[in-house]
Structure formats: structure tokens, C-alpha cells
């Protein structure tokens, strides 16, 4: 895959940045464990899609971008929001359906938005947000503001027409967008090998004449490096780039999934490649952290997650007036 595996860690990243990426991955994992617990306790309803096992993708990719680069992602969006620095308490409050949630309790787990952080949302129509990412990239290109767009979606999206329309448009207009496919081999219970004529997703992008490569999505440093390289070209005006991150979700599609469609051994195999464990081991091997640092990080994310849950729990429910608010923007432009 990438050259990077030969190096221990990227030379130009200082250790605080390396540790911060570990902390973010741990935060996502712990946050979602708490969310699952809250779902079981009836605090969270609807669909809850967990990102467990895929944390290295969001953390590696988003840390390689500027803070004001735009993010669009799919409904499995907690990891991307947390990696972008969206407030965990307000995310948890959104999952709880509270007024203080990032989307005022109107979006839920699948529709986190934080425009102030250029987090342009989680979208629940498979591939429906790829055209929006193109449009945002188009606006950035026109305004010459130097911002690029990262658009994240699953392997299920690549058989939708909107995927192909978007890649073609982005390529023909040289739009500053990185398409990032999280290939976890399953769209709900459907194995990609059963429904895709070409299973190497990155090859599909080659048909649209853009640089495209496969990356180890279980390796945060590879994700970081691949995204950083892609971003350099995209920001320089060379047009879009495509990344296929190979990964696996450790849990079901959503909380409602009994996982009849895949073997326990397959999940076990991937769990052995846990992106957090392997990254932690790597950082310890190279003396970036020791057991003590790790324990401090653990205690830190634990405190953040507990505080988030308490904030959500103590937040007000939306009042009845909220129902008819936000359908239309009222101010004249």
C-alpha cells in the first residue's frame, strides 16, 4: 500500500500531534460505547450506526486537513464529527434528541451538523451528499478561498448513479474535493463481492481520470499521509482525488443488526487488527508514549464522555414551538 509503513512515524509530526490522534481515536471508541449503553437504556432511539473499528480513517484523514476545509459524510458520522472537534456534549445531546444538540434535536445520530467547524453534515441517503460536496467545492473554487472538501461515504455508495455523476462532474470541472470511500466490505448485510462488478473501489475512480489509491484504513498514519498527499494536489488546483480506505466495522450495521450475514471468524480476524491497539503499540515501541501516558489518555476521554452524557441527560427537551422552526430560513439574503 503506501510507502509510509517503512517509516516508524512521519518525521514532520511532533509527538503531541501523534498522541492527539491516538486520543481522538480513543475518544470516538469510548463515546460510542457510551452511546450504545444509552441506546440500551432507552435514552437514544432511531438508527444508531457505530464506527467502531473504523476510527483510524476519520482521525487520519481529518487531521491531515485544515480546520476550515469542509466535511461531508454519511450517516455513520460520529467519528468524523468528533475528529473535527465538534463538542462531544452537543453530539450526545443530539443523539438524545435534546434542544442543546448540534442540530437542535432535529437531526439525530445520522444528521450531525456544525457549520461553524465546517462540518457540513451527516447524510442518510446513500450517495446523496456527493453532489453537495461537488457544489461546495465549486463554490470554494469560484471564491478562491483555498478551502477543499472531504466527502466520506461507504462502499454501498459506489453503485448509485449519484456517485458516478459526481465523480464525472468533479473531474471535468477540476473541483477541489477528496472522495473518501470507507470500504468495510458490507452495505448493511450485503457483501460488496456479491453486488459489485469491480470490487476494488479505487479502480472505479480511475475511470474518471483522477488520482486514486487504496489505503490501509486500519492504520491512522497511512490514512494521514495518503490524505495529506491527496490534499496537496487538490489544493494546488489539480482537480479531485479518490481514496479507498480498507476497513471493517466491528459491530453491526446499526444497533438493530443481528449480523446473520457474516461469520464470527471474519470479525475476529479484523478485531485483531484493531486500529487503536496497533497505533498505541507503535507509539510505545518508538517511545512516543508509555503506559502512564496511555492511562492518562484513557482517564481523560472517560471524563469527557461522562461529562457529555451528563450534559445530554440534563439538557432540556425541545419545546413545542420548535416543531415549526427552521423549515425555512427567514432573513433576506
Amino acid at each position, binding site marked *: 500500500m503506501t510507502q509510509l509503513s517503512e517509516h516508524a512515524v512521519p518525521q514532520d509530526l511532533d509527538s503531541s500531534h501523534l498522541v492527539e490522534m491516538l486520543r481522538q481515536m480513543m475518544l470516538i471508541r469510548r463515546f460510542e460505547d457510551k452511546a450504545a449503553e444509552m441506546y440500551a437504556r432507552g435514552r437514544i432511539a432511531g438508527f444508531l450506526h457505530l464506527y467502531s473499528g473504523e476510527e483510524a480513517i476519520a482521525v487520519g484523514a481529518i487531521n491531515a486537513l485544515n480546520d476550515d476545509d*469542509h466535511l461531508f459524510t454519511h450517516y455513520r458520522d460520529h467519528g468524523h464529527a468528533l475528529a473535527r472537534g465538534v463538542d462531544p456534549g452537543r453530539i450526545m445531546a443530539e443523539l438524545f434528541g435534546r434542544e442543546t*444538540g*448540534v*442540530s*437542535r*434535536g*432535529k*437531526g439525530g445520530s445520522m*444528521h450531525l*451538523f*456544525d*457549520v461553524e467547524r465546517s462540518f*457540513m*453534515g451527516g*447524510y442518510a*441517503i446513500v450517495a*446523496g*451528499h*456527493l*453532489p*453537495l*460536496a*461537488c*457544489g*461546495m*467545492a*465549486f*463554490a*470554494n473554487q*469560484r*471564491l478562491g478561498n483555498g478551502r477543499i472538501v472531504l466527502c466520506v461515504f461507504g462502499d454501498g455508495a459506489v453503485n448509485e*448513479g*449519484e456517485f458516478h*455523476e*459526481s465523480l*464525472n*462532474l468533479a473531474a*471535468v470541472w477540476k473541483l477541489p474535493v477528496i472522495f473518501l470511500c470507507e470500504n468495510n466490505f458490507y452495505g448493511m448485510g450485503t457483501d460488496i463481492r456479491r453486488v459489485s462488478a469491480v470490487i476494488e473501489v479505487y479502480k472505479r475512480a480511475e475511470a474518471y481520470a483522477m488520482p486514486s489509491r487504496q489505503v490501509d484504513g486500519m492504520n491512522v498514519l497511512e490514512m494521514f499521509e495518503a490524505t495529506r498527499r491527496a490534499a496537496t494536489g487538490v489544493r494546488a488546483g489539480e482537480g479531485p482525488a479518490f481514496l479507498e480506505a480498507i476497513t471493517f466495522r466491528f459491530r453491526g450495521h446499526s444497533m438493530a443488526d443481528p449480523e446473520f450475514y457474516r461469520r464470527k471468524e471474519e470479525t475476529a480476524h479484523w478485531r485483531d487488527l484493531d486500529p487503536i491497539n496497533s497505533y498505541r503499540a507503535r507509539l510505545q515501541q518508538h517511545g512516543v508514549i508509555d503506559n502512564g501516558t496511555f492511562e492518562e489518555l484513557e482517564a481523560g476521554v472517560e471524563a469527557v464522555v461522562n461529562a457529555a452524557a451528563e450534559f445530554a441527560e440534563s439538557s432540556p427537551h425541545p419545546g413545542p414551538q420548535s416543531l415549526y*422552526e*427552521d*423549515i*425555512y*430560513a*427567514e*432573513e*433576506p*439574503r
Partner: protein
Amino acid sequence: MAEIAYREALRQTMREALIADERVILMGEDVGAYGGSYAVTKGLLDEFGPDRIIDTPISESVIVGCGIGAAMGGLRPLIELMTINFSLLAFDQIVNNAAKLSYMSGGQISVPLIIRMAGGAGSQLAAQHSQSLEGWYAHIPGIKVAVPYSPRDARGLLRTALTEQNPVIIIEHTALYARKGEVPDGDYAIPFGEAEVIRQGSDVTLIGYSGSVFQALQAADLLTESGVEAEVLNLRTLRPLDVGTIVASVRRTNRAVVVEDDWKFGGFAGEISATIMEEAFDDLDAPVARVCGADVPIPYAKELEQAALPSAQQVADAALKLM
């Protein structure tokens, strides 16, 4: 005040917007080099260049989605979809994204996007090119739907759309593009949600929008021969709908006929009719009548197509039955 065609009113208004605001861009299939499939955008490419007047691939979904994203990113896109029939390939973007983003984001996102499309029948284009699906769009909270009848409407409604923070769908009627009428210039705008009483009368209210205002006006002429004075309403926008003007008129005339090119079954005429029933039941002297398109795919042959569309005579007959 000049006498110009409907398409010219649209073109001039878009041209002014392109001059006034750098952020305005025009995108669509064949809007540039070809000049627009109904010649509405003719000449704009020459004047504003390919960075502002943008020919797209035949990809309705990404055209609209790209417009939404560009609106989120600070531009003011004007999108032309060749016809309402092809807008179905962008239905997902319109319904699931444009109409939902403000709400789902708790008010963080607004989508100041205009989507123009041509609708209606009458040119023997057969079933896949002759539909009137505006009721489907009017059904959806989160978007606004304008349906201009006159060149004056075309300018006035488009100017209001250009000041909107929300997605606006403008459905133009193919049979109206060449029709001329007086259009005020300058700052003239028509607010959304204000129907026009285009003809006054005391005996029955004929309610139409877009192309069907034409049949309603003709029917009003026919009705004078029978001594019936019809009031004619031009709705101008379907969402928001001017319930006040409809109800006030029916309270005076005590009778109503709704005229629509679209199918009657599950269509917008049913919505108007139910609204009158809810708001003015005690004022009605007869049930509300609907004169709509026949419940068939629009056929090609001239006599069949004409038979499938509401005629002025049908409207007049329906009104007389209420007397």
C-alpha cells in the same frame, strides 16, 4: 413598462441578477452554447462568459446537488432543468437535501437556490415530455413553488426568488414562453403567497395557475354569454398558497371551479378544494368543482392530446352546473 414575451421577461431578469451580483451563476444542460432548450438563456453566454453561464453534463441529480452545495458555500446558483419531466432524476436532491437541510441542521444551513423548469403539455410531445407535476413539489415543506402565468408574473416572481434564502422551484409553462404582456421594469417584484384577482366577478370563482389561468379567463368570457360573471384567480405560488384570497373570493361568489392541467387524482386541485371546504363551507352554494387533465399519460396525436387537457368550454360548463 414594456410589452415583452414571458421568456424574455425571464431572460432580462436573470441578466439583471447576473449583472447585480457576482455570486449569481447559471447552470444547466444546454443553457450556454445552445441558448437554452426554450431559448430563455439565449445570449447570456456571450455576455457573461463560461464561468457564469455553465453548460453541465446530462446529470440532473448532480446539477441540482451541486447547486445546493454551491448555495451552502455562498454562491447564488440559478439552475435550469430542461423540463419538469427530467427533474425526476433530481427528485432526491430536491426533496431529501434542498428541502431538508435547514430543518435537519437546526437552522444552521440555508439553501438560497433557484431551480427553473418547464412544465405543461400542448405541443404533441407525448407522455414523457408533457407532464404537470408541480403538485408533487408543492407537497413538500422546505421549498417554495412559483408558477408564473404572465410575463409580469415571470419577472415579479423571479425577482422575489432572487431575494430568497430558501430553495425556490419555478415551474414555467411551455405554452406560455412566447406570449407577450406588459412588464414593469425596475424594482418590480411579486411577493410569494399573494394570488392575483385577474378578473373580477360575483357569480363564481375560477381558480387557476400557470397555463390554466388562460383557460379560466377564456371560460369567463364564455360565461358572460350566459349572464354569469366569473371571478378569476391566478395563484402565482402554490407554496406558500394564498388561502386568504381564495377564501375571500369564494365568500363573495359562493361557488368555485379549480382548473389544472395536472391529473385530478391526488392532485393540487384537490388540496385547494379541501381548503375551501375547511375554510368556507358555510359560504358554498354548491360543491367545489375540479376541471383537470384526463387520468391518462399524455398522448401524442393532436386530437387525443387536446382531449386530455382541460378546455375553456369544460370550465364554463362546470361553472354553469354550479348555478
